[in-house]
């Protein structure tokens, strides 16, 4: 007696079709799962057995049960195989019609009382099912909105008994209620209007948003560096449907999707603590998992207190910054995680934090200052297109009127991006001459020159100009990484 159910395993973000075969034969009772199943997957035996019994279904007594997860060479992990395993066994016993089961993909974890729990990565599994030519996915009710995003018809279920009744044709498919439209929109990001003063830094943030430039904010504690950084997603253009699905797939695999907001519709914002390890930031682990850089894909990665991060983590960032993708190779497989993010770093100007604050005298020795800045290699600093010092504002500044709101800034950003896409401004001769002169006068590397040219183009686009004028280059130069930040 043999039957099979279809599900999908994930390699990184990629779904791979897995056939769950159940074979029952007379003999000494036993239950074996084969096909490179990990520990969570092996434990399915106990959950499946209890779940089936709790659902008042018959468990095959005096039978030797073999479950094979094919292809056998692919590593399987996680608890999402519980539901397909139990359905395959029940179909093998003919407690439900195998041909009906073959029309469905299934994913879900079983509770001991037979309830079905959601699992991570449902979106990717649903996409896999659609690609395999199946039109229906049996999954936990909580996962249904996520599965629906893949363009497949979810069969939202709460209990194993309900699934069996449905597959036997005793009940209609449980109804799937699509979420209201507002659930597919993102929560609003904090607004720029909350920030008073710091006009120069706001301007730099706007340029960073318009040109997708990386931004470094330096200044004493309490000047609003982090507050400003958190407001970047709010002035970025909203994600397109395609981009949103890309981001959602990553967040789904990482198990970060809230049930009531299945779609990541606004640019994500990630701010790992400086204690995070290199695999946590760039991705990896024994079985490849997306890191913070991938969770920030199409959004913003904030590294608060940049020099506090271990050097190894900072250097590991250089490759994704360059390529926009992280390649993780493990015994368990080879996975590609997209990582096209915008980086914001913040730092104090010296270890004691007093520099840039007129009220305090900095007590750092030249050696300590050197060691602090040494940590940021030139190569990493070169990845920041814009660097802004944020000195402590005086009290009068804090009493200033609230600044412009994010909505107004975002409109300019969207217009500038459109301008960059349709009519790329070119440098005038005078602008090129200014740039060349500046390269001689200022500590600018070859890459630095390219950065300045790129920022100047964004500034021209924000101004709606057809050409990059000297004034645009001059402004771009003023946001260069200050020489004193690169270990002097």
């Amino acid at each position, binding site marked *: 007696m043999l039957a099979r159910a279809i599900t999908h395993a994930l390699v990184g973000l990629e779904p791979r079709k897995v056939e769950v075969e159940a074979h029952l034969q007379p003999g000494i009772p036993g239950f074996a799962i084969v096909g490179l199943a990990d520990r969570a997957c092996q434990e399915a035996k106990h959950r499946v057995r209890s779940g089936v019994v709790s659902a008042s279904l018959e468990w095959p007594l005096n039978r030797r049960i073999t479950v094979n997860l094919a292809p056998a060479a692919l590593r399987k992990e996680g608890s999402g195989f519980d539901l397909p395993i139990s359905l395959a066994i029940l179909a093998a016993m003919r407690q439900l019609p195998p041909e009906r089961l073959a029309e469905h993909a299934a994913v879900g974890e079983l509770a001991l009382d037979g309830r079905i729990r959601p699992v991570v990565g449902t979106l990717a599994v649903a996409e896999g099912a659609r690609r395999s030519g199946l039109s229906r996915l049996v999954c936990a009710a909580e996962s249904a909105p996520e599965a629906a995003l893949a363009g497949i018809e979810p069969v939202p279920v709460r209990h194993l008994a309900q699934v069996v009744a449905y597959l036997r044709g005793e009940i209609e498919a449980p109804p799937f209620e699509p979420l209201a439209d507002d659930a597919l929109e993102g929560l609003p990001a904090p607004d720029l209007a909350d920030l008073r*003063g*710091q*006009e*120069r830094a*706001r*301007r730099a943030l706007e340029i960073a948003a318009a040109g997708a430039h990386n931004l470094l904010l*330096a*200044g004493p504690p309490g000047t609003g560096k982090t507050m400003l950084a958190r407001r970047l997603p709010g002035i970025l253009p909203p994600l397109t449907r395609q981009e949103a699905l890309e981001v959602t797939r990553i967040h789904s695999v990482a198990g970060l999707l809230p049930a009531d907001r299945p779609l990541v519709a606004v640019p994500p914002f990630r701010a790992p603590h400086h204690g995070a390890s290199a695999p946590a930031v760039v991705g990896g682990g024994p079985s490849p998992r997306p890191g913070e850089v991938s969770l920030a894909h199409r959004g913003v990665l904030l590294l608060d207190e940049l020099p506090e991060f271990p050097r190894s983590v900072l250097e590991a960032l250089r490759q994704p910054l360059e390529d926009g993708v992280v390649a993780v190779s493990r015994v368990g497989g080879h996975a590609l995680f997209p990582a096209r993010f915008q980086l914001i770093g913040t730092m104090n*100007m010296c270890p004691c934090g007093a*520099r*840039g604050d*007129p009220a305090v*005298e900095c007590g750092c*020795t*030249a050696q300590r200052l*050197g060691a602090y800045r040494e940590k940021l290699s030139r190569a990493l600093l070169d990845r920041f297109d814009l660097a*802004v*010092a*944020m*000195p402590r*504002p*005086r009290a009068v*500044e804090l009493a*200033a009127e609230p600044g412009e709101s994010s909505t107004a800034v975002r409109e300019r950003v969207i217009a500038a991006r459109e301008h960059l896409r349709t009519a790329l401004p070119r440098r005038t001769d005078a602008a090129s001459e200014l740039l060349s*002169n*500046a390269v001689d*006068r*200022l500590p600018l590397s070859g890459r630095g020159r390219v950065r300045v040219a790129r920022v100047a183009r964004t*500034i021209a686009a*924000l*101004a709606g100009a057809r050409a990059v004028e000297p*004034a*645009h280059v*001059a*402004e771009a*130069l*003023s*946001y260069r990484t*200050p020489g*004193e930040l690169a*270990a*002097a």
Partner: protein
Amino acid sequence: MGAEVLRIRRRDSLFPPLLAAIHDPPPALFLRGNGEPATLARAAAAVVGARACSAYGRSVARSLSRDLAAAGLVIVSGMARGIDGEAHRGALEAGGTTVAVLGCGVDRDYPAAHAELARRIGERGLVVSEYEPGIEPAPWRFPARNRIIAGLCSATVIVEARERSGALITADFALEEGRDVLAVPGEITSSLSAGTNALLRLGAIPVTCAGDVLELFDLAPIEMSQAELGATAQEALAFLGDGPRTADEIGRATGIEPGSLAASLMELELAGRVTLEDGVYRAMV
């Protein structure tokens, strides 16, 4: 810079006469760099000060040395971090000649962060020491080095110095030899200016512009051709006349919007009219 080291002894005709006149001249000097040994006999001013200096001291040392070097003086300093380094850089900026006196062998780049600066000094000037090549830097050699800095120059300018600092030792040597000692006034509340203000009380000549130093040498300050400035740049510069300000403060006071203000400030920086440190702009004197 040539790696070879030239040695001149006290009895050689090339030995700088001013240095030979001090009460304990070194038996020999070791020279590295493309500058002629006769450079050491030219009219020279020492510009020295604290290693841990303020943005004010840094900017004054730079612009003062630039103007002095442009007028034809050789700038002598100790290549330390802070004021000394800025003094050398200012002279180089003006295309002038500068001499670094080390407290270790001339083949040692000390401090290591100034290796590139040493190379640039050597392109037209000299790196000088009384110690044989290979001698390690040591704190107790620096006061002796200061007597050579003072000895090579007929005037010594102290830009910023705390009380009991190395720069004051240089001033003492200069006084003992009857050379002119000048000091840059600073805020009376700043500990970094305590040493220089004390010198002024004792009768040092206050420096308010390059002309105060050049007067001693019967030289006239060179009017540097100033680049034409845009209207907003001039407005921003005028506002900086009241003291150092952040970009946001300038913007709020003048009403210039942040984008064109950033461009104007960069224009001023490239023209050498303002300096930027830790987000604070400061007009150059």
